[in-house]
């Protein structure tokens, strides 16, 4: 198979950003603008290369039959040599297309966003305040460059070990970036600070990652290799894995395939913030908004979905072997989709709504994977990344604007501190569409796409595909759960839009909010393009009217790739019933949102009307079903209690034993010193010293200190050695 030579660039894709990371931390750190220029330049290079690879792949669908794979030996381990390398198949190409572009947009956006933050005291950082940039501006770009390396590396990796390494790099970056403003604190002690949020995210995902690594180890024991094509190209091996069983305590006999895929799925649950490990993602919104867009919407959280997509042959083998793991995936996905959507309804923080919406949308993807709708999951993954990063970045722009408005009022208006002002609270906004037209309209486009506004948005096509599959394959429970989720999605999205952009400003800050700088608005426009038209790569062929004129090349490509991996994904037959139901639900969600928030805009200081209507349910939703409190009770408290118990045990029992042993040893040593040390050892040491002195006095005569003299002796020794050859 001859590959287009541009594929040789693949292994270079993660490199520019990695170099940028080192260049920034080692050299460019003191120069803020230089750092951001390095990072943006690197990511643009990566973008160009990834698009080159992706587009060449799209133009040659026959490559799905021969995914590109390039390996070099890496770790020799006994008889097995571990290879590292890169691979390109349709999934990789799609991901490269999305990741490269979104990363670039977010990097550019960040150059505008990371201005001097409101929570810092300008007098403490005079230089940074004068420049108007965050004091840790360079560090931010170093981190996101490293993050970009992790994401691009994860996408192009051709084996699970490399994938895991990049996965963990992203985990580290996520921790560093969520806690980026680690010195920020709030007047309310119960509100989570960035430092705590970072720690929480890191520890929560760790639970999933440990299980994921166990899955990897089991897989490696069985396969002896972690290369994707080596594992998935080997049908016999997969079959064997799905038939051989292992006895587990509590669970009884399960197949190896089922166990491994379950463990790996837990990794994805942690990374993609699915129930029950979803708690970290909303709090991760404490990080800067580009980070939320980058990590917690477009790329990192979708890595979990990507992982399951990659491992699909294993999952389907497990399902064939009678394991319920696919059902579990579908259940977790569908449940999370609805569950997170309900929480999103009652949030007042503009980013938290989006965070829960992300969890919910990832749930859709997992549900799709669980019912075997492989193609629909990937397409929704790609399109979701575009519109969700758009939404996050637009919300960041809004926050920026409101914060600026606040400062404006603060400086020019009355000088008294009127208490803590939360620029992220939607109830402090309103009427922003007039003040920030670009942000507003792009946000509305993204929101429409998220709510699956029929026909003209990308989100409609991808989400509809999932629902159509659920209906066509007879997964009614999944279908109705997701459909209910779709209604809620439309509702909370437009609740957000009406609260933020329509009506009249509810605070002075909102009244004076300026439009953001161009570095921030242009990426929004670029992403809005994809949020609107990105869906036309996967319009079902038999969809009335539109199907005839739009394209579905991406879906076709993914189907071909699925065939190659032995996954038979037939496109769902078009059926009016589910399509009409989902369209109606989406539109009615929008209408309900308009009736509640748009018809009569909320006045300043008024509470959310939902609170009156839903009563206690609203309180439960507002508190996220008390999950944090529950975990605190179940996991954190017992751990702390155990720790203090062990501390006391350590002090009372173990330390005492150790001290006794020590005292005995000292007594013994004193006794021995008196008898053995003085008469035997000291005498021997002194004797050795005397002998050394005497020998040295003789031997020093041949030390002349002249290198040539020593060399001569060396030569003579060589001559003697040579003489030994003929004498032998």
């Amino acid at each position: 198979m001859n590959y287009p030579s541009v594929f040789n660039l693949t292994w270079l894709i993660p490199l520019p950003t990695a170099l940028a990371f080192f260049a920034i931390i080692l050299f460019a750190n003191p120069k803020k603008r230089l750092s951001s220029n390095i990072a943006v330049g690197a990511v643009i290079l990566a973008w160009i290369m990834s698009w080159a690879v992706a587009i060449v792949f799209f133009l040659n669908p026959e490559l799905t039959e021969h995914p590109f794979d390039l390996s070099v030996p890496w770790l020799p381990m006994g008889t097995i040599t571990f290879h590292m390398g890169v691979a390109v198949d349709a999934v990789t190409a799609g991901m490269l297309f999305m990741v490269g572009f979104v990363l670039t947009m977010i990097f550019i956006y960040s150059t505008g966003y990371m201005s001097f933050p409101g929570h810092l005291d300008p007098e403490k950082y005079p230089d940074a305040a004068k420049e108007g940039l965050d004091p840790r501006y360079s560090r931010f770009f170093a981190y996101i460059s490293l993050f970009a390396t992790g994401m691009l590396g994860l996408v192009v990796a051709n084996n699970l070990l490399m994938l895991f390494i990049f996965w963990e790099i992203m985990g580290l970056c996520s921790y560093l970036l969520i806690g980026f403003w680690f010195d920020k604190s709030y007047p309310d002690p119960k509100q989570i600070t960035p430092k705590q949020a970072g720690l929480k995210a890191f520890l929560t995902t760790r639970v999933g990652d440990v299980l994921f690594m166990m899955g990897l180890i089991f897989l490696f024991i069985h396969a002896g290799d972690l290369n994707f094509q080596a594992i998935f190209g080997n049908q016999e091996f997969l079959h064997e894995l799905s038939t051989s069983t292992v006895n587990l305590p509590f669970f009884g006999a399960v197949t190896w395939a089922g166990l491994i895929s379950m463990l790996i799925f837990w990794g994805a649950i942690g990374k993609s913030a699915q129930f029950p490990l979803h708690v970290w993602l909303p709090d991760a919104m404490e990080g800067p908004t580009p980070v939320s867009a980058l990590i917690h919407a477009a790329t990192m959280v979708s890595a979990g979905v990507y992982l399951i997509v990659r491992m699909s042959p294993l999952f389907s083998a497990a399902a064939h072997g009678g394991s319920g793991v696919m059902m579990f995936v579908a259940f977790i996905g569908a449940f999370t989709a609805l569950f997170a959507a309900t929480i999103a309804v009652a949030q007042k923080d503009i980013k938290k709504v989006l965070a829960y919406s992300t969890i919910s949308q990832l749930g859709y993807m997992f549900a799709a994977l669980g019912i075997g709708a492989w193609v629909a999951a990937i397409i929704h993954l790609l399109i979701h990344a575009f519109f969700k990063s758009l939404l996050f970045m637009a919300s960041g722009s809004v926050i920026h604007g409101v914060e600026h408005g606040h400062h404006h009022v603060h400086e020019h208006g009355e000088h008294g501190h009127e208490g803590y002002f939360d620029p992220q609270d939607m109830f402090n906004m309103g009427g922003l569409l007039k003040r920030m037209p670009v942000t507003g309209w792009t946000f509305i486009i993204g929101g429409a796409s998220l709510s699956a506004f029929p026909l003209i948005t990308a989100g409609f096509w991808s989400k509809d595909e999932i629902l159509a599959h659920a209906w066509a394959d007879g997964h009614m429970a999944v279908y109705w759960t997701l459909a209910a989720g779709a209604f809620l999605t439309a509702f909370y999205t437009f609740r957000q839009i009406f609260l933020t952009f329509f009506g009249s400003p509810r605070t002075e800050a909102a009244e004076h909010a300026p439009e953001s700088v161009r570095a921030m608005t242009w990426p929004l426009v670029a992403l809005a393009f994809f949020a609107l038209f990105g869906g036309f790569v996967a319009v079902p062929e038999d969809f009335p009217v539109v199907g005839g004129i739009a394209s579905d090349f991406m879906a076709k490509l993914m189907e071909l790739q699925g065939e190659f991996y032995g996954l038979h994904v037939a496109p769902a037959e078009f059926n009016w019933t589910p399509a009409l139901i989902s369209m109606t639900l989406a539109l009615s969600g929008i209408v309900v949102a308009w009736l509640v928030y748009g018809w009569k805009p909320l006045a300043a200081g008024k509470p959310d009307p939902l609170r009156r209507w839903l009563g206690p349910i609203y309180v439960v939703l507002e508190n996220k079903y008390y999950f944090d409190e529950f975990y605190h009770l179940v996991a954190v408290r017992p751990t702390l209690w155990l720790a203090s118990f062990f501390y006391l045990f350590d002090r009372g029992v173990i330390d005492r034993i150790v001290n006794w042993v020590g005292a005995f040893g000292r007594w013994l040593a004193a006794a021995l010193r008196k008898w053995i040390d003085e008469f035997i050892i000291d005498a021997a040491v002194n004797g050795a010293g005397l002998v050394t002195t005497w020998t040295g006095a003789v031997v020093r005569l041949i030390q002349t200190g002249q290198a040539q003299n020593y060399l001569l002796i060396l030569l003579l020794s060589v001559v003697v050695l040579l003489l030994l050859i003929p004498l032998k």
Partner: protein
Amino acid sequence: MTVPLSWYLIFATALFSLGFFAVLSRRNAVAVLMGVELMLNAVNVNLVAFWRYLTPSDLSGQIFVVFVFTVAAAEAAVGLALMISIYRTRKTINVDEINDLKL
């Protein structure tokens, strides 16, 4: 290939011996350095001769000669710099007057 391999080897041995003699007995450090260069060249001749006569199809011999070139270049640069530095502090580069190895 009318020249026997042993001629090259004897030639290289002679050159090596000359170089080694310079290293052993010249007083001036620059002359010692030149002796080292002679030795390295003798080694190169051996490498190339063995390559040509024993394994002409495998070019590792030539590649090693190139590595010797690099090392020789580095050696000359650092060696001369050392001599200049030593001359600056001790006003001599006569090797037998530099006997700091002896305490």
